[in-house]
């Protein structure tokens, strides 16, 4: 589209501002984590590693981190299995019931967090699930399910079902067909669903705040408690560690994918 130079400059400037606005809150935690004083300030003063040390040695932080890892790993597997099964079922159903059921399964994405949280809290109080691993896993799995469903469904939509027919006509049983034809083709969708499910659980805060207790805290709950209680720069250190870990994971994944693609050529 032809644009006047002035329009072009203004457009560029607006977009740079928006980009800064998007990225700034993520990046400011990095310098803040090296602050010398026990205060959260930007720009920070001095330099020290003490908040990183605190993260790894203070049991409040390290145990909540391990809890989050544990919960998110179980949730990722569980949500991927349930979500993939459901995506298959919906794909092979008649259109009308499939639409209704799909909408039903996506509701966890739109129900306001606090409403869901008080509901789950009420049920968990009766079922003695507050502050238990099972409680966290069940709640997070249902919140992660829509992401798996969307990812796998997107993969199934472009999936050519004649391939399964071909395999069956060549004598493969249902299980063999699934293992050798279907599974490899939908694996990318399952993997991205797995990743989203892990991230959803690892980051979940609203429901977690209600179903937590002093014996079982996840990392976001610990961060929230720390923010509302005092200005502990350990939070900034946690943010920086998470940022670096994600960057490594995503960067490594992209490199691997790129190499694989090149290898196939």
């Amino acid at each position, binding site marked *: *589209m*032809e644009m006047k130079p002035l329009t072009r400059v203004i*457009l560029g400037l*607006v977009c740079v501002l*928006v*980009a800064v*606005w*998007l*990225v*700034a*809150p*993520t990046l*400011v*935690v990095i310098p*803040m984590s090296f602050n010398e004083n026990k205060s*959260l300030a*930007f*720009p920070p003063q001095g330099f020290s590693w003490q908040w990183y040390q605190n993260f790894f040695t203070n049991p409040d932080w390290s145990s909540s981190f391990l809890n989050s890892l544990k919960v998110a790993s179980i949730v990722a597997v569980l949500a991927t299995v*349930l979500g993939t*099964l*459901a995506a298959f*079922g*919906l794909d*092979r159903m*008649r259109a009308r019931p499939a639409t209704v059921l799909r909408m*039903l*399964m996506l509701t966890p994405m*739109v*129900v*306001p*967090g*606090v*409403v*869901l949280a*008080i*509901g*789950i809290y*009420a*049920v968990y109080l009766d079922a003695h699930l507050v502050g238990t691993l099972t409680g966290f896993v069940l*709640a997070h*799995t*249902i919140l992660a*399910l829509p992401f798996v*469903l969307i990812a796998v469904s997107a993969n199934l939509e472009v999936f050519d079902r*004649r391939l399964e*027919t071909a395999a069956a006509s060549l004598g493969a049983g249902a299980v063999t*067909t699934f293992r050798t034809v279907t599974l490899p083709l939908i694996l990318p969708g399952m993997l991205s669903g797995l990743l989203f499910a892990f991230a959803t659980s690892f980051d979940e805060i*609203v429901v977690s705040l*209600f179903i937590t207790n002093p014996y079982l805290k996840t*990392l*976001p709950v610990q*961060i*929230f408690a720390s*923010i509302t209680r005092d200005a502990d720069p350990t*939070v900034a250190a*946690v*943010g920086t560690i*998470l*940022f670096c870990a994600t960057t490594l994971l*995503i960067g490594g994944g992209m490199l691997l994918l790129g190499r694989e693609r090149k290898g196939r050529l």
Partner: protein
Amino acid sequence: MSALDPTTPSAPKWAGRAWRPFALTLPALLLLAAVIGYPLLTIVLRSLSEPQWGAQNYVWFFGTPVNLTVLQRTFVISAWVTLVCIICAYPYAYLMTAVGPRVRLALVLCVLIPFWVSGVVRTLSWVILLQDSGVINSLLRSAGFDGVRLIRTQTGVVIGMAQVLLPFMILPLYSVMKGIDLRLMRAAQSLGARPSRAFFTIYLPLSLPGVYAGAIIVFILALGFYITPALLGGPRSTMLSTLVQTQVLSLLQWGRGGAMGVVLLVATFVLLALAAPVMRSRYREAGRR
């Protein structure tokens, strides 16, 4: 779907049996019923039955001015957040379609980076950045705007929430804009339309489905926001979610908190129901083009 009709003899044997697909969705549906359905039902029942059976909690909610103020404020803040998101996302998404692959990758990264760090940590950054002695206020002061308050005000809440929700506006906008045939614009201009006229008569209407989709997602997510208003806001920017939490956790008023929650839930689903047909027809129009 382009796949074979399941009744075709060459289709896999099991595809013809109608109960199989349902069986596959059953585990997910059971969990959904247990962890979403049953809790929401519990909340509805409690809002009608505590302390006694009746509509007293709803009468109380709609009869108390403070609640109505907060309800109205929740909608106003959500509307502001949606508006800010549209204004910021539109040029950004457009630029994503207009630049080369390298710059596009950079722009996409900027949209995705916020997801890399926990939402709570990002909100904390906003608390630091927006506080009275923070960077933004000192910049504003040196630019001559003295005494602007951002933290614990509605403006601060809107800035923080819009930043969290902006990706949900940019991504649908981008996916719609990507499909717009830019030759239409060139055709209009070659027929003598000025760029602005070509934009308003051709590009804008074609991109509206993306705006609708993004706006609905952002508005609905904004209605239920809890953490950002709780940390960035003050008593004069409380949103409905915070009120629900106070009633249930601090005052142990399950009936009243439940009633508030049901109001929020109903508002969300009414909006979704209203938006769904509009969005569907807009998408169809865009597809027909």
